[in-house]
């Protein structure tokens, strides 16, 4: 079997199933069957990635904190431990059979709907991600816009969860989460504008096509793209409520934020929604800046495209775990200052820099000009913000 055939094996499989079913099913049902066949792998693969990530995250965090992490649970009734990778099955069973506690005063309907309203938009976002060559479930003309539109719908579910619980910590958590998501949505969207200007399309599949032919064609390899990619990463971390931006669920302050009053499988759904949101955001970052499913070197294109996508996703996941293990949490004012005073101006500058990059002739001059256009404002801005805080060398006064 050729490399091309292995790369397209899932597409071939889908068409084979459709061809096999065609004589037995009425015509109007075929588009629905085709859609179901495209959706099923997304529904199977990404929750599995989530399950594995829960174990990997606890093991890596354990390693960072000098402890083993989960290493016992393996295959039940045997002595095989699988280095603890059976843990997620045990956790899943636990979440399923746990009692579902709903507060007596809670708004039952909204409380029930909130986790569903979180998971549905998050799953919808996957439909426009190109997971491999020809493997975009829904190749929309305006795929990037679709991604952000469904992403913005999750804010309402956070509010629903926090408000319906009738719990002050839940409401505080929801308020924090919404303030954070609204603030960081702006730099998140603005940081992608440069890529859209450069490729001239909002279709995720076409953006990936524009980055073919090795890592030096990726958008992250240009000066403006590199800056935009980092701003995107910061905003994505905040949008996914990950440390150091995990104020909405800061367990030392407000218990667990907006899902304080959730237990059992509803809590598991929140957990799932949060991680799936993170993966979707990483997937968008890969698509826009890191060449999507393209291999870093043209010679490596023999490896199937979907393997490259999941390898890059794995790197993103490990990066986010690393961040979580090493960074302290921000304070609320620091969070807002970072978004409005630092991220938004810098993303606007990267857009202008991308425009300059587009209209200058290729060469060292262009590279230097665009780099200077980003580095100089960055230095000036961070210097000004640092001075404005009035932080100097710490002085101590001792009792005499």
């Amino acid at each position, binding site marked *: 079997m050729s490399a091309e055939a292995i790369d397209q094996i899932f597409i071939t499989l889908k068409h084979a199933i459709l061809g096999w079913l065609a004589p037995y099913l009425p015509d109007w049902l075929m588009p629905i069957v085709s859609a179901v066949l495209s959706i099923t792998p997304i529904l199977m693969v990404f929750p599995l990635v989530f399950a594995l990530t829960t174990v990997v995250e606890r093991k890596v965090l354990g390693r960072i904190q000098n402890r083993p992490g989960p290493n016992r649970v393996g295959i039940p009734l045997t002595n095989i431990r699988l280095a603890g990778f059976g843990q997620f099955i045990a956790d899943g069973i636990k979440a399923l059979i746990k009692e579902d506690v709903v507060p007596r005063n809670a708004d039952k309907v909204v409380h029930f709907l909130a986790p569903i309203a979180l998971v549905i938009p998050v799953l919808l976002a996957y439909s426009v991600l190109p997971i491999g060559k020809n493997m975009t479930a829904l190749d929309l003309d*305006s795929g990037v816009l679709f991604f952000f539109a469904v992403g913005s719908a999750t804010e309402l579910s956070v*509010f629903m969860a926090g*408000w319906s619980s009738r719990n002050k910590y839940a409401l505080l958590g929801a308020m924090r989460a919404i303030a954070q998501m609204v603030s960081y949505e702006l730099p998140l969207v603005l940081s992608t504008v440069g890529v859209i200007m450069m490729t001239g399309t909002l279709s995720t599949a076409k953006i990936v096509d524009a980055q073919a032919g090795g890592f030096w064609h990726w958008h992250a390899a240009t000066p403006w793209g590199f800056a935009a990619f980092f701003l995107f990463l910061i905003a994505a971390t905040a949008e996914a409520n990950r440390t150091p931006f995990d104020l909405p669920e800061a367990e030392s302050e407000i218990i667990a934020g907006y899902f304080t009053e959730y237990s059992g499988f509803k809590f598991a759904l929140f957990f799932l929604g949060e991680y799936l949101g993170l993966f979707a955001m990483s997937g968008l970052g890969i698509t826009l800046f890191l060449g999507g499913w393209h291999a870093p070197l043209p010679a490596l294109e023999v490896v199937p495209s979907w393997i490259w996508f999941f390898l890059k996703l794995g790197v993103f996941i490990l990066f986010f775990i690393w961040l979580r293990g090493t960074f302290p949490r921000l304070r609320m004012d620091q969070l807002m200052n970072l978004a409005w005073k630092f991220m938004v101006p810098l993303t606007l500058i990267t857009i202008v820099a991308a425009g300059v990059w587009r209209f200058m002739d290729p060469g060292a001059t262009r590279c230097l000009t665009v780099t200077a256009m980003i580095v100089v404002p960055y230095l000036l801005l961070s210097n000004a913000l640092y001075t404005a805080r009035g932080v100097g060398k710490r002085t101590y006064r001792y009792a005499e």
Partner: protein
Amino acid sequence: MTLAFAILAALIVVSAVAAMTLRNLVHCALCLAVAFIGLAGTYLQLGAQFVGLSQVLVYVGAVAILIVFAILLTRSGEPGPGRQFSATALMGVAIALAVFAVLGKVITSSAVAKRGVLPAPQTSVAQLGQKLMTDYILPLEVLALLLTAAMIGAVIIALKEKESAK
């Protein structure tokens, strides 16, 4: 009328009616958000991708959030005592129906109705962007300037309050 349109229409009508009649204001706001989503679905079904997705982005992502925050900050979501409908509700319905009848009569007898159904234009997001950036660049810039001025004005008003409080 296709099945998809029937489902969307039912969703919009039911959630809009719920948004007007429910007692709890937060429930009303959430139902309104469902109606917005239904409208976005209708736009998408008509092939207007940009309008549909902007509808979700702006109305569900921002306006609905603004409404629920406004409710939370101004009063509790619990319904107050008293009747839900005012005494002159029937009169209101009659006036609304009369206005609808007049508008309907005027529109059906106007030149627009006689024009017939035009073929649906195929407008992509790229075409919209091209038009905005070439033919309509001046209105776009004026609009952008106006919105920026409004935003800066809002920030200045908020800042002044903070200083006087000190």
